């Protein structure tokens, strides 16, 4: 365990030195602030809690941005160190390969959590300071959104490590990472929509739809944040959420499986790898 913490601390140290932490936090904060102030303008005084609107707009943003940040952070983790030659030296130390991956995971997750918490937190804080009334329900939804955003980030960090273990070169890993991002964030949903259009209103068996939504971690995240409470009415996801049997618990579990499975596969492959 101590080795894992040593590696994690080094990743964080490096992240701070490379301005990675600063850059991602500022990026998320800037976008969150923009969305929360521009986004609250059109609603006027219709009795909707402004923070709910922020939750809706921020989670839509998260679906694009957080996986991208996570993949950029993680795709290089193994293959990059291999190529630079630092991995060889590291593995000659009394440390297991699993510990290396778990340590990196912990470090990268900490960086991403920090950026999400403070970047998005800035938006909530700004709303509070400008005198907007925030109900405790909305605050809870906001906290849940930050938590699940970190989970979504963790999913893509884990996927990034798997890519990084499989790829023989950094550039390959980068290419695969972009492909994976495009697939989960854009292509998958477009294909799903296309499929529904082709089906011409023939009702899809609801079990199949549920499965299709859980298989993509970004959809699980979307449903988790936009499928309940005030957000569902605002985002129009309520209609879909009403159709599925997916409870928040199942969605959370789906995200957890999406973290554990790639991470396990990555550590197993990395442990067997010949240097």
């Amino acid at each position: 365990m101590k080795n894992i913490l040593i590696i994690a601390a080094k990743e964080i140290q490096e992240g701070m030195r490379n301005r990675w932490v600063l850059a991602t936090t500022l990026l998320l904060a800037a976008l969150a602030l923009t969305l929360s102030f521009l986004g609250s303008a059109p609603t006027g005084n219709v009795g909707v809690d402004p923070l709910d609107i922020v939750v809706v707009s921020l989670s839509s943003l998260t679906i694009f941005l957080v996986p991208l940040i996570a993949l950029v952070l993680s795709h290089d983790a193994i293959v990059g160190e291999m190529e630079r030659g630092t991995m060889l030296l590291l593995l000659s130390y009394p440390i297991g390969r699993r510990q290396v991956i778990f340590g990196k995971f912990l470090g990268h997750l900490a960086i991403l959590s920090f950026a999400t918490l403070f970047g998005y937190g800035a938006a909530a804080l700004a709303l509070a300071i400008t005198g907007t009334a925030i109900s405790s329900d909305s605050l809870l939804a906001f906290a849940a959104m930050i938590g699940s955003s970190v989970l979504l980030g963790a999913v893509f960090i884990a996927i990034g490590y798997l890519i990084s273990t499989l790829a023989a070169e950094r550039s390959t890993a980068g290419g695969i990472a972009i492909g994976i991002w495009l697939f989960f964030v854009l292509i998958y949903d477009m294909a799903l929509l296309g499929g529904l259009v082709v089906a011409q209103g023939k009702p899809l068996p609801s079990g199949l739809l549920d499965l299709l939504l859980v298989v993509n971690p970004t959809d699980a995240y979307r449903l988790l944040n936009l499928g309940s409470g005030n957000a569902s009415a605002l985002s129009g996801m309520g209609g879909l959420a009403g159709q599925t049997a997916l409870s928040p618990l199942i969605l959370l579990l789906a995200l957890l499986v999406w973290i554990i499975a790639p991470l396990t596969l990555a550590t197993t492959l990395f442990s067997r790898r010949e240097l």
Partner: protein
Amino acid sequence: MTATVSITDAGKCYGKVEAVKHVSFTLNEGETVALVGHNGAGKTTLIKLMLGLIRPGRGSVRVLGEDPATGDFAVRQRLGYLPESVSFHMALTGRETLAFYARLKRVDIGEGNALFERVGLANEAVDRPVRTYSKGMRQRLGLAQALLGQPRILLLDEPTSGLDPALRRQFYDLITDLRSTGTTILLSSHALTELEDRADRVIIVNGGLKAADGTLEDLRRLARLPTRIGVTLADGKNAADLGASDATWRTTGDRTLEAAVQPENKIALLHQVTAHPAVITGLHVMEPSLDDVYAHFLAGQVKTP
């Protein structure tokens, strides 16, 4: 002498390439051994086997009595390793880098300052990012991390490649200091010449096989390479005046001659040549260089018992 590393009939394949075929040797406490071979001869693979980074496909590797590739890697606590063309995390400073490796080895970080002094890494450089380091400084930092925790075995993979002669010399002085502490030092290199007087023993590998193993004296003897004796003749004298007609003299320049002679005939020939001091004005005895010995073993694949 206690063996710290023993490799028995080890073999290792990467796909279809047999990087190491059948190699056996032992390294003893306090011994400095040079592992010499061409690029791609299997030196780095052997070092990786000793580190437990890869598992042998055949045979066994024992380091300090244990298999380095299994268990809780306790063996690696007592190992120091300097990889070929070592690299570090560019954004961290030298001090942070060494502190990171010290933590992994559970060594008191306070030891770091003494190590920086020992490897000659200047104080003002220690707190600069590694990105700004020259090759020599990086190599010093590499050596500092290898020396963490007073290792019993030091594996140095081409430690002097790319260093300037002054640095190289300093580097070997450091190695000499370490020898006296009972550390086993394995130096890999593709140049034998610079290892003269530095290594107790030389192991030559070629094409994944051990081509020779012994002290430099042993290797010289086994190779039976001729010593070359060169003379400069005095004015008006010729080869016949030398009185050494058993040797075949070869003209190498204006009034210089050279003969190759087997080790056992060397003294006799020298005696003959110097019997008439008036005939010659100069005399050189050229023992076979280490590179000659090396080339001989690589060409002939002579196996030593």
